[in-house]
């Protein structure tokens, strides 16, 4: 049972990683292009306000990053500090939920 849960987490980690790979390439290119000459809030909001495609992209990006990051931190917590059991799983789920909420909140501020 424990092994099957570990395999599922491994699979979700890899699938979210594949998705993030694509998103991160786009994000890095956007950052490197946009940073030229500095950016202002006006410029950012001009590009993002009302752009629901961008909103959908960054919403999925934020959720994938939250899932990938939480599973990764869970693995490190297990292997480095030996934190195991229900409390560790609960902490990972809470961190994931917090990141999802914060990410979607940030996206809503930029798009809506």
């Amino acid at each position: 049972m424990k092994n099957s849960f570990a395999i599922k987490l491994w699979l979700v980690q890899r699938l979210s990683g594949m998705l993030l790979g694509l998103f991160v390439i786009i994000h890095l290119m956007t950052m490197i292009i946009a940073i030229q000459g500095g950016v202002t809030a006006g410029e950012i909001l001009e590009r993002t306000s009302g752009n629901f495609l961008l909103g959908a992209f960054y919403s999925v990006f934020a959720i994938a990053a939250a899932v990938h990051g939480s599973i990764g931190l869970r693995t490190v917590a297990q292997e480095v500090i030996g934190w195991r059991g229900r409390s560790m799983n609960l902490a990972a789920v809470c961190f994931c939920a917090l990141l999802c909420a914060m990410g979607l909140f940030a996206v809503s501020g930029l798009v809506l």
Partner: protein
Amino acid sequence: MKANHDKKEYWASFVQRWSGVVLALFLPAHFIVLSQSLLGEQALNGFLHWADMPVVKIAEAGLVGLLTVHLLGGLRILLIEFLSWGEWQSWMIIVAAGGAFSSGCLFLMRAF
């Protein structure tokens, strides 16, 4: 583990793990900054003005480098896990290190 410290694969794994931890812990701060737009353009501009300091730009370039090394290191792991082993895969460590350094430098060049 100490016996492996002279192997580049050990350091690739070390960098992959800890770059992931840094990026995951950075995410809440990133989302808080983006959420400033909910408080208005002025609030976001306040942060962007602060981010204009050279030391912040250098730190941002470090994050760009970490994101790139985690991306390329993750790609290396996926290639090892899902494809049969080829000697060319060992070059992925050098590609990841070079890519991270290049993207960080490119970001700095455009930021200043």
